[in-house]
């Protein structure tokens, strides 16, 4: 029963038992819920008023129906895959029975992309592009922030490249990637194109914010560093990075948001596998269910973007020294 006497436990206990705490929680969830309710109602009302060439605009109920349809399709595809490997195993057994030395053909299953496999592809692509961009942007941003000369060199370039739309990069990236011989280790060509486009667009917010954060270390702390005669490396680690962390994360969160938006657009335009392609295919498909499916996809894109941002926020809370500073 030691835990019951721990001060943290008492704090926890008093926090949770206080009616004030519960009231606050209740109020917050009520507010969140009412926001969602208003949205669904508006959607329902508006959808009944809109007629499109593909029939009536789907409301929440149709979207929900398509969602379960998409889940079913995914499960069916899974079963097909399981059955394929099952058959292959049986064939192997038969071959071995006929001739123990027989060569066994191992055929991979060619899965048809489902909604969920497209989600996975998109997430993999966005994270790869974002991580690569961050690996370049953070160190470079630190260097630029530390040296005003480097800042002068890079600032015009950053200002020039930052506003370029992903759609403008796409043809260039596609041409360059298709001219380079890619080994299998890199994955498919379209994956590389998507990753590069995401990288090029999500580099800048992190780069700029890191540079600004690093260059805005308070003079007082720089004086401490000088008086203690910290080496370059320790100065960076002990003084510069901790004070730049909030700005770096602001940049990272902006970058990740941009990366996600850019990726969907790039997938639509370049027909690269992913959620964007799913939306585009449904649009081209033009069946009566397409609009509902697109609605589902749009909502999922929003939810995933939100989840990615939460992920960064959690990471920021882990890394930042000031736990109270990070809120929303």
């Amino acid at each position, binding site marked *: 029963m030691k835990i019951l006497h721990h001060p943290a436990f008492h704090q926890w206990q008093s926090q949770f038992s206080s009616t004030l705490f519960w009231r606050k929680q209740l109020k917050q969830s009520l507010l969140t819920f009412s926001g969602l309710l208003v949205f669904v109602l508006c959607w329902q009302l508006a959808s009944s008023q809109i007629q499109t060439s593909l029939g009536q605009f789907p409301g929440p109920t149709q979207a929900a129906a398509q969602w379960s349809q998409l889940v079913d399709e995914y499960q069916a595809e899974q079963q097909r895959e399981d059955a394929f490997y099952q058959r292959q195993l049986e064939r192997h057994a038969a071959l071995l029975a006929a001739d123990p030395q027989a060569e066994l053909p191992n055929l991979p299953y060619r899965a048809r992309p489902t909604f969920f496999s497209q989600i996975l592809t998109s997430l993999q692509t966005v994270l790869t592009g974002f991580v690569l961009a961050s690996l370049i942007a953070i160190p470079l941003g630190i260097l630029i922030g530390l040296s005003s000369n480097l800042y002068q060199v890079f600032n015009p370039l950053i200002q020039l490249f930052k506003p370029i739309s992903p759609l403008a990069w796409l043809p260039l990236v596609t041409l360059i990637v298709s001219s380079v011989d890619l080994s299998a280790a890199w994955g498919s060509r379209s994956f590389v194109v998507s990753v590069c486009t995401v990288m090029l667009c999500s580099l800048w917010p992190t780069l700029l914010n890191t540079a600004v954060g690093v260059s805005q270390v308070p003079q007082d702390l720089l004086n*401490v560093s*000088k*008086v203690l*005669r910290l080496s370059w490396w320790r100065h960076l680690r002990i003084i510069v990075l901790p004070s730049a962390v909030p700005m770096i994360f602001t940049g990272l969160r902006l970058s990740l948001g941009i990366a996600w938006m850019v990726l969907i657009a790039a997938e639509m335009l370049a027909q690269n596998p992913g959620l964007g392609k799913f939306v585009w295919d449904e649009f081209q498909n033009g069946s009566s269910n397409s609009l509902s499916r697109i609605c589902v996809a749009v909502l999922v894109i929003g939810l995933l973007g939100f989840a990615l941002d939460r992920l960064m926020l959690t990471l920021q809370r882990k890394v930042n020294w000031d736990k109270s500073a990070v809120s929303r």
Partner: protein
Amino acid sequence: MQKTHLELTQVGISFPTEKGPFVALQNVNLHIKKGEFVSLIGHSGCGKSTVLNIVAGLHQATAGGVILNHKEVTEPGPERAVVFQNHSLLPWLTVYQNVELAVKQQSKGKKTKAEIRDWVEHNLALVHMSHALDKRPGEISGGMKQRVGIARALAMQPEVLLMDEPFGALDALTRAHLQDSLMEIQAQLNTTVMMITHDVDEAVLLSDRIVMMTNGPAATIGEILTVDLPRPRHRLQLADDPTYNHYRHQVLSFLYEKQRKVEDLGSKRAEKQQQKTQASA
């Protein structure tokens, strides 16, 4: 006390500002002996911190120079420690880590882990901060932060201790205690101390000499008062001492008669008003 060990010769500094260079200090000459305790006193904004920062090596004098142990001061060095006016603790390190950083940096691997721990704790105990070793600066009061800043500087065992209003944010009791500790440490280690203060009593009690600065811009040393009171000094005994009160009076008269700041502003305003009335007439 021996020969000159810290020497400021014709020190001047001008800061580049948007309205052209701003001359903050001019012709500052000061010779300080080893183990001497010198206070800098003067009105706010006259340039006391700037003098200290030049000696610390954080600012470069634009005229003249500072010589410490026969070497020109161009950058911070291990023989000097600074207590900053606004404590300047690293907010992401705990009280203990803030002091430990300085100790580690100063000992450069010459101390074992246990020795470092002992030394950090000893210095924090000296300023009565043992109860808050694991608190962050954001969680302690201004006076507590200042005490940690003092502990950090003391823990570096400097030859020259530079202090910018070290006791400003402290209550009278803690302040008295720390003043006594400082006198003790200084006597023991023969540390040279340069301390900025606004408190006349503190200046007289602690100092061998009080350097009184004129108002800026282009501030310089107005007068230097040698405080010839025997050490160790006890605040209670000194309270009724006529020599002590004589010194106090001299500093006060410098500050409030010869370098009256408020009066200056008042007379300027009067002048302006006069000009206005003349213009309208």
